[in-house]
């Protein structure tokens, strides 16, 4: 019978909780990495800056399946970090989403930082600002672009299927609750079973979640 999988609310709750936890954690870590890089590259004038920018922008379009394969190789039993036993765990999914979201957040934040007029930085120095003050003032001026970058990174992370499937394995516990099953991998799973109605409902839930997170972040950002 269609929608059978959703008759148990604990199942739906568990995959929503895991999807949000993994993606939010990945975005938090990614933001912590991306913003300092975006500011360092945006502020500095060095040889090879265009190359670094090109690498970041290329990373924005990195195929997720390739990222999944690389992370799988690194974390698998035979890989360099195999002893950590992270493969097929939510932590592995966080790592793959982190790798995918970081170039997106860095690239958009870098573009936002570079779009702040040099005159604003001069004005900041003119009132006695230190480099840290100027960075903070630039962050405030570029905040809408930075927020857009974070939201784009979140969008990329939570809508991810390929890499989280490879490193997470789409595993459910015996009681049916999720171990590494997210909304996206659950949708893929239901489609493979031919349960299109269930997949559509899960898709609607994913959309509502993304809308909610976007609304909350934009509200916090003052937009």
């Amino acid at each position, binding site marked *: 019978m269609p929608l059978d999988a959703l008759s148990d609310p604990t199942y739906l709750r568990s995959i929503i909780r895991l999807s949000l936890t993994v993606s939010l954690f990945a975005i938090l870590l990614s933001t912590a990495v991306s913003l300092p890089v975006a500011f360092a590259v945006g502020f500095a004038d060095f040889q090879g800056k265009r190359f670094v920018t090109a690498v970041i922008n290329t990373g924005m379009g990195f195929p997720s399946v390739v990222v999944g394969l690389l992370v799988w190789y690194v974390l698998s039993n035979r890989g360099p970090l195999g002893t950590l036993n992270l493969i097929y765990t939510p932590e592995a999914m966080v790592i793959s989403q982190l790798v995918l979201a970081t170039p997106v957040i860095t690239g958009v934040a870098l573009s936002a930082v570079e779009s702040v007029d040099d005159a*604003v930085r*001069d*004005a900041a120095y003119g009132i006695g600002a*230190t480099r840290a003050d100027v960075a903070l003032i630039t962050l405030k001026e570029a905040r809408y672009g930075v927020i857009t970058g974070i939201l784009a990174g979140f969008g990329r992370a939570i809508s991810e299927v390929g890499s989280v499937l490879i490193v997470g394995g789409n595993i459910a516990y015996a009681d049916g609750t999720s171990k590494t099953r997210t909304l996206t991998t659950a949708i893929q799973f239901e489609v493979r079973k031919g349960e299109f109605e269930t997949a559509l409902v899960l898709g609607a839930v994913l959309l509502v979640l993304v809308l909610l997170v976007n609304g909350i972040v934009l509200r916090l950002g003052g937009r």
Partner: protein
Amino acid sequence: MNFELERASYGVDGTPILTAISLAVGAGEVVTVIGPSGAGKSTLLRLAALFERPTDGAVRCDGTEPWSLPRDDRLALRRRIGVVFQQASLFETSVARNVDAGRRIRRPWSSRLRGFVERLAARWIHGSPTVDDRTLEALALVGLEDEWDRDAASLSGGEAQRVSFARALAPRPELLVLDEPTSDLDPRNTAILERAIGRARDRDHGVLLATHDMHQAERISDRVAVLLDGELIEIGPPERVFEDPRDERTARFVRGDLLYDDNELLA
């Protein structure tokens, strides 16, 4: 503050922009730098604001050479200098927050964090922002004390430049460095800023001003310095420089026939 450039030169990639400039600005004195576009006025002001280090010669603030000091000590000196540029470049916040910015960044981080939390709380509890007397005092100097809670983005160009002046003045710097602050302004806003510069001088602020406007230089300066091709060719009281220049090039500049040869004008 007694500010001094001593045979200061500046160049980029071996190309000289300023050559052996010697110039002093005392407390309560307005010194105006005039000269054609490209003469090096803005670069000279950037040296004075301690934004750039001279490639040769020295800058002295009360006899101290800032570029020989550790960074923190140099920052302390830089904070005794206020800067206004041709472009107002206000921050995307309210007028009061712009004017208060210089004082805010001088506070320790703990105090700034507390201020941030208090401001958020005040906005959520009382629903309205607050302003302090120092900010209002700086705004009153440019006639904008009633506009403190406006969004800076809603100001006209002239109002924005007046707020920029108040922002530079609020931390009470001893030297004001003003890079063509009125060049984009209408006569009314220009008059308001000139009056504010006069008041700053009355309060013993030294002022180093660059301008294209020779009438303005004549109106507000104690001394006028003429800069040409990166060299200071003449300095003296405005009436003497404009009416009895010692350098032939100054006379030609004042007459307006230094800048162009006939071919340039025809082109």
